[in-house]
């Protein structure tokens, strides 16, 4: 179950489980619903995520384009998920830790 918290202009998403092609569209809807107009910065906590595929990368890129890289942080990424981000060269662009 993904959790979402809104604090003023900040949206925090706490994701969990596998994020693959199948459940990406559900995730995208959830994020869209929470990305109301006030939101200017986003934090995604991936502590509980053990697997991502390219469809998640697409969502990430969409978020970056929406709020710009200074306002976007992805944290608590485990090594195998980090590897995917590295291959896609997103670690240079987004604050991922």
């Amino acid at each position, binding site marked *: 179950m993904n959790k979402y918290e809104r604090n003023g202009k900040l949206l925090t998403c706490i994701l969990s489980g596998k994020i693959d092609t199948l459940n990406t569209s559900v995730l995208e809807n959830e994020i869209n619903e929470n990305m109301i107009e006030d939101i200017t910065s986003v934090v995604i906590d991936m502590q509980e995520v053990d697997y991502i*595929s*390219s469809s998640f*990368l697409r969502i990430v890129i969409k978020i970056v384009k929406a709020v710009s890289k200074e306002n976007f942080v992805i944290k608590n990424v485990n090594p*195998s998920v980090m590897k995917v981000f590295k*291959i896609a060269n997103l670690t240079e662009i987004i604050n991922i830790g």
Partner: protein
Amino acid sequence: MKRIKNKRGLTFKLIIFIFLSVAIIFTLIFLDNYDISKKMVEKNLKLNAELITKNIVYKAEKILGSVQEIPNNFSKIIEDSSYSEAEINRILKMEVENNSEIYGACIAYEPFYFNSTKKYYAPYYYRNKKEIEFKCLGNEQYDYFIMDWYKIPKEINRPMWSEPYYDKGGGNVIMSTYSVPLYREKNGKKYFIGILTADVSLDLLREYFESIKVYKTGYAFMISKKGTYISHPIKELIINETIFSIADAQKSSEMRVIGRDMVKGESSFADTEYYNIKYNKLSRIAYAPVSLNGWSVGVVFPVDEFMKDVNNLFIRVMFLGLGGLFFICLVIIFISRSITSPLRKLSIAANKFAEGDFDFEIPPSSSNDEVGSLNKSFAHMQSALKKYIENLRLTTSAKEKIESELKIAREIQMGMIPRKFPAFPEKKEFDIYGFIEPAKEVGGDLYDFFFIDDVRLCFAIGDVSGKGTPAALFMAITTTIMRAENQIAGLNTSSVINLMNNYLCKNNEGNLFVTLFLGILNTSTGEVEYINAGHNYPFVIKSNGAVSELNTTHCIPLGISINTCSNPNTFKLEKGDTIFLYTDGVSEAFNIDDQQYSIKKISEILHNQANHTPFEIIQHIIDDVKDFSQGTEQSDDISVLAIKYLGKPLSKVPTQNYQMVIKNSIGNLSSLSEKITQLCNNWEMSSDVLNKVNLVVEELISNTIFYGYSDTFEHDIILNLMYDESTISIEIIDDAKEFNPITQKSADINSDINERQVGGLGIHLVKSLSDAFTYQREDSKNKIKIIIQF
């Protein structure tokens, strides 16, 4: 009619515009004309009316004048004082007797004039049927001195006509009493003695008025000084009504104004129109006074009658005009039909043309106007296009024939080049990968590799000069001979090359030649023996990253002349070294600025590739070349071959195999993932490898499911997993549309975040996570094989 009614049609437009314009012009001219005519008629009318009225007045005056002569004469007689009463009375009687118009006559004397005892003395003779009767008027009840007929003439010293009245006898005769003042002279002075009256019938006047003809329904009438009708076609009005009472009854202010003017004695032709009493028709009236007695004559002219001629003219002109417009319509219809009819035919012909029917006949046009010339141009275009399309069809079908032959030739050619990777999975001493992409036409590039014995791998890369089928055949021959000659173990490279050259030189009419690099790798020692017949110098990448060229040319390309190639060279590949071979399609790839990729660039890229597999190295180079030459058409075949020496192999481990069949529904991905996870756990693989496998499978299969099929049927996707100690290989076979992930340009992972596309990431991930990646299209199926090493 339908064509005319077509609101957008030419005919309709013309009719509307021309018709409206002509109609407007015509109406304006006509109205102006009518206006002028009306004014002319009016002017004429005025003159006429005034003349007619004057004439009537003149006649009326004549009649009245003649009537009033009798009393006037009598007054003269009576003024002659010598007559006695009896004589005067006799004269009075005679007056009545002898004049049929006079119904009665009376002399009313001043008080006590005639007889000093009689105040009132007024002998009166009157007609009663056929007799003349006598009466003496005047008594206290009948005080004639105060009556108008006595008082007024006395005051004004002249004769006067009274207001008209009907005769006393009860008949319908209109009468008026003419009163003449009488005077006698005494001592040089005139003094008033009395009034002589004559009751005169106005019948003559009435007859005259009734005979007056004014147009057809016009008429004349006469009113008295007080406005009372003396003569009028409506007999009931006479005496009974005045012009004012009628004006009131009719609520006509125009009539009242006219009446006032007439009574005042004015003469005019009234400007205003009013509704005449007799017929209630709109009329104009002319009037003039009868100066004799202040009565007035009015002549009524019905507007419709005096305007009749103009109106008739109006109607006539209108009909002519309408007739003319109608005629214009017909002419327009005729002319526009002569234009639109051929145009319509041309339009039909053009539509037929567009449908591909070039033989539809264009109706000939004999006219020399623009329509006719359009027709001729169209016919000319039709025949020219027919010829052109026929030519094109012939050329295209010829071209297609050639192209299909070329396609077949290419398929055969490609079949001869080993493209299955990993080529020797069981051989752990080296890793080999090759890639060829022909240019548009059938190419002449080749690479090949095969074992000539258990240990020695023969490999070669070459480039046939020229393109097209002859080059391809030449290349086929080269490969065949190379394999054949190499079957004879013990031969070394130079003997093989010389044998090949000899064979190729024979029967080489086309003067083709092939550059060839031929090498033999001893897989247990790493030694390579090679001969270079005019081919690009291959690169060697040492495990420490150093890059060098094998820059020896041993002989000229094969197929030119029979000469002996000099002795081969040898060198040793250490563990981790790679040899990289290419053809000039790589180094001479052009970009849009006409610059070459260049050998230098290849060298630069290879510098960083020491730790990469042949697959990765080649992927890198190909990606870079494609990037560089984007926007231009590939002009030459691109071929690359890379061999990495790995050294002595580890002991063999039996491989595990697992196959699954999945239907092409995205919902199946989750169960697939579970199965793979379970399998990998059984094989005791690390979670890192498990994730890689899951990711690769998920990306490739979801790609196939999303983009691979254009129908809605169920399709099978076959997944094969093979596992041995150091590698896991994943094979996916589907019958979707042809899709080679290797040649797909990878997602640009270096572009600015704002320009990053979301597509292509999946394939990029797969390529990055794979240690080897091959693709084949076989039996209308895509076969992808991925190797992950661990």
